[in-house]
C-alpha cells in the first residue's frame, strides 16, 4: 500500500532519512518507533507530502506521489496528530465534515456519513452540536480520528495520537484503534515513542535510528529476536522474552528450601514452618543433593528433637538436571504427582527447584512477556 524506495530526506547536509526502504502492506497497522530525532515523524509526513523527499520514490497505492497533487493526496490519506488540531470555531459536526466539505459532498451525504462515524466510537449524538472546547481530551481525539476516517481513506497516518492523553484514556483509545482496525481493515502508519503502545497495537514494528530502519518485524519477533544491542536496549530488557521454556534452567526457581543433613530435627521443623513447606531437600556441606525428608517422616519418627536429619533415613530422589528438557520434567511431575523437584548441575550440586508455580510463571512470560 505504501512503498518507500531508496528515500532520502536531507536539510542541507543534515540527513534526516537515509536511503529508506519500507513496504507497508494493505490492511496492516505498522508502528514507526525510535528515539527522538530518528526520523519517524518525517517518514510519516513524507507519505502525505507534508515533507518532500530529497531523493527516492514513495508509492502510495501503486502511484508515485511525485505525480500527484499534494492537496488531492492529503484528502485521500487520513491524518491524526498528537495536538488533535480540531478547529475551535467549528462544531464537532463541522469538524468531522471538513474533508467531505473540501470534496464537495452534498449536505445529505455528509450528514449520513457523520451519523455513521459517531456510532463507531460510542459518542452520543448530542456532541455533534457542541464545540471542541466542551469535550474532554479523549473525546476530542476520538473526533480527530473520525475526522480522519470521514471519507474512508484506505490509509491513515497517526502521529503520536495518544501521546498527550492520560494513561487511562490512552489505553481505552488504543483498544478502540485495534478494534476499529480489525473492523475497517485500514492501512495505518502509526508513530509513537511508547514501546508498550507499539507492542499492544502493531502488526509490525519498524524501529528506526538516525534515519534508518534498524529492525522491522512483528512485535513477537522483535521481542524474541532483537537484531542488535540497540534494539534490545530500546525495547527495554524487561520486555524481552527470555523467549523460552525449553530447558529446566528456563523454568526453575532459585527459591529452594534446603537443609544440611547435620541439622537437628527441631531446627528442620522450624525451617519448614517458617518457609511454609511440607518437606526439605537435604544437602551435605558442599551442597550436594542427598535426598529429602517430609514433615510426616519427622512426626512419625521416635527420635529425639536433637538428633540430626541424616539419622532419620533420608529418602533418595531423582532430581531434575538443569539442561534436561522442561517438557520431560513437567510430564514426570504430572505422572508421579510431584509438587517440587530439586534441580542439580553435572556435579550433583543443588542450584534450584522446579515447582508447578515456577513452570506456570515461565510459560506466562513466554506468552505475555515479563511484566514485572
Amino acid at each position, binding site marked *: 500500500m505504501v512503498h518507500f524506495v531508496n528515500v532520502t530526506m536531507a536539510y542541507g547536509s543534515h540527513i534526516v532519512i537515509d536511503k529508506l526502504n519500507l513496504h507497508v502492506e494493505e490492511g496492516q497497522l505498522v508502528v514507526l518507533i525510535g528515539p527522538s530525532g530518528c526520523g519517524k515523524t518525517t517518514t510519516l509526513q513524507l507519505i502525505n507530502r507534508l515533507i518532500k523527499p530529497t531523493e527516492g520514490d514513495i508509492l502510495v497505492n501503486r502511484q508515485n506521489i511525485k505525480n500527484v497533487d499534494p492537496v488531492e493526496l*492529503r484528502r485521500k490519506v487520513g*491524518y491524526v496528530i498528537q*495536538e488533535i488540531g480540531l478547529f*475551535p470555531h467549528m462544531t464537532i459536526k463541522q469538524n468531522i465534515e471538513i474533508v467531505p466539505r473540501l470534496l464537495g459532498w452534498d449536505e445529505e451525504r455528509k450528514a449520513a456519513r457523520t451519523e455513521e462515524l459517531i456510532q463507531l466510537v460510542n459518542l452520543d449524538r448530542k456532541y455533534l452540536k457542541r464545540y471542541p*472546547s466542551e469535550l474532554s481530551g479523549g473525546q476530542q481525539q476520538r473526533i480527530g480520528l473520525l475526522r480522519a476516517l470521514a471519507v474512508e481513506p484506505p490509509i491513515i497516518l497517526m502521529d503520536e495520537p495518544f501521546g498527550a492523553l492520560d494513561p487511562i484514556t490512552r489505553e481505552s483509545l488504543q483498544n478502540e484503534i485495534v478494534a476499529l482496525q480489525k473492523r475497517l481493515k485500514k492501512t495505518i502508519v502509526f508513530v509513537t515513542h511508547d514501546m508498550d503502545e507499539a507492542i499492544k497495537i502493531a502488526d509490525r514494528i519498524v524501529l528506526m535510528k538516525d534515519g534508518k530502519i534498524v529492525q522491522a518485524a512483528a512485535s513477537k519477533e522483535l521481542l524474541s529476536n532483537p537484531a542488535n544491542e540497540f534494539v534490545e536496549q530500546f525495547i527495554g530488557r524487561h520486555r524481552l522474552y527470555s523467549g523460552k521454556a525449553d530447558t529446566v534452567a528456563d523454568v526453575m526457581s532459585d527459591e529452594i528450601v534446603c537443609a544440611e543433613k547435620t541439622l537437628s530435627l527441631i531446627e528442620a521443623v522450624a525451617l519448614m514452618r517458617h518457609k511454609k513447606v511440607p518437606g526439605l531437600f537435604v544437602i551435605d556441606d558442599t551442597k550436594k543433593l542427598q535426598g529429602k525428608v517430609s514433615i510426616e517422616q519427622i512426626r512419625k519418627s521416635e527420635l529425639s528433637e536433637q538428633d540430626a536429619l541424616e539419622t532419620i533415613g533420608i529418602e533418595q530422589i531423582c532430581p531434575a538436571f538443569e539442561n534436561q528438557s522442561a517438557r520431560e520434567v513437567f510430564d514426570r511431575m504430572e505422572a508421579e504427582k510431584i509438587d517440587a523437584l530439586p534441580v542439580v548441575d553435572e556435579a550433583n550440586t543443588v542450584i534450584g527447584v522446579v515447582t508447578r508455580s515456577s513452570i506456570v510463571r515461565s510459560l506466562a512470560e513466554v506468552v505475555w512477556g515479563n511484566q514485572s
Partner: protein
Amino acid sequence: MSSFLTELSRNSHAVLIAIGQHIGLSAVAILLGILVAVPVGVLLTYHTRAAKIVLGIFSVVNTIPSIVLLGFAMIFLGIGYIPATIVLFVYSLLPIMRGTYTGIKEVNPNALKAAKGMGMNRPQMLRLVQFPLAMPAIITGIRLSTIYIISWATLAAFIGGGGLGDLIWMGLQSYNFHLVLCGAVPVTILSLLVSFLLNHLIKRASRHKGKEVAT
C-alpha cells in the same frame, strides 16, 4: 443645561446634517480602510520582513499629529470632503492592518497543521480556518480605527470636510460654548455607540476562541 438644549433645538437641523456628514465621512474612510488594510494585513503574514517595514512606516505616520497631516493634505490635495477622507483613511489603516496581521499570525499552529494535513489549499486555509480564528483580532483593529476616525473626523472641519467638527469650530470662534457642545456631545455618543457595538461583535466572534482546545 437648559440653554444647551435650547441651542440644540435651535440648531437641530444643522446638527442632524452634521451628524449625517460625520458618519458619512467616517464610514467611507473606515470602509476604504478595511478594504485595503485587511488584504494587506493578510499578505503581510506571508512575508515577515515586509510586514515589519510596512507596519513600521505606518506607526510613524500615525504618530504625526492629525492636524499636521490635515495641513499637508490641504497643501497637496486642496480643501474639502475628499482630502479629509483620504487623511482619515490613511489613519485607519494601521490598527486594522496590525489586527489582521497579528490575528492571523497567532492562529493556533496545530489547527493549521491539521488543516494542511487534511488537504486544504492556501485559500481554503485562509477562508475556513485562519480568517474565522483571527476575526476577534481583526474586529478589535477595526474598532480601534473607528474610534480614532470618529474623533479625528472632527478635525476634518479645518479643511472643509464638514461634519460635527464644523459646529465645534464655529462655537469656538464665536465663544458659543453651547454650540461647541452641540458638536462634541454627538461625537462622544457616536464613539461610545460604535465602541459598544463592535465590542459586542468581538465577543461573538471570540465565543469559542477563548477556550483553547486541549493539546
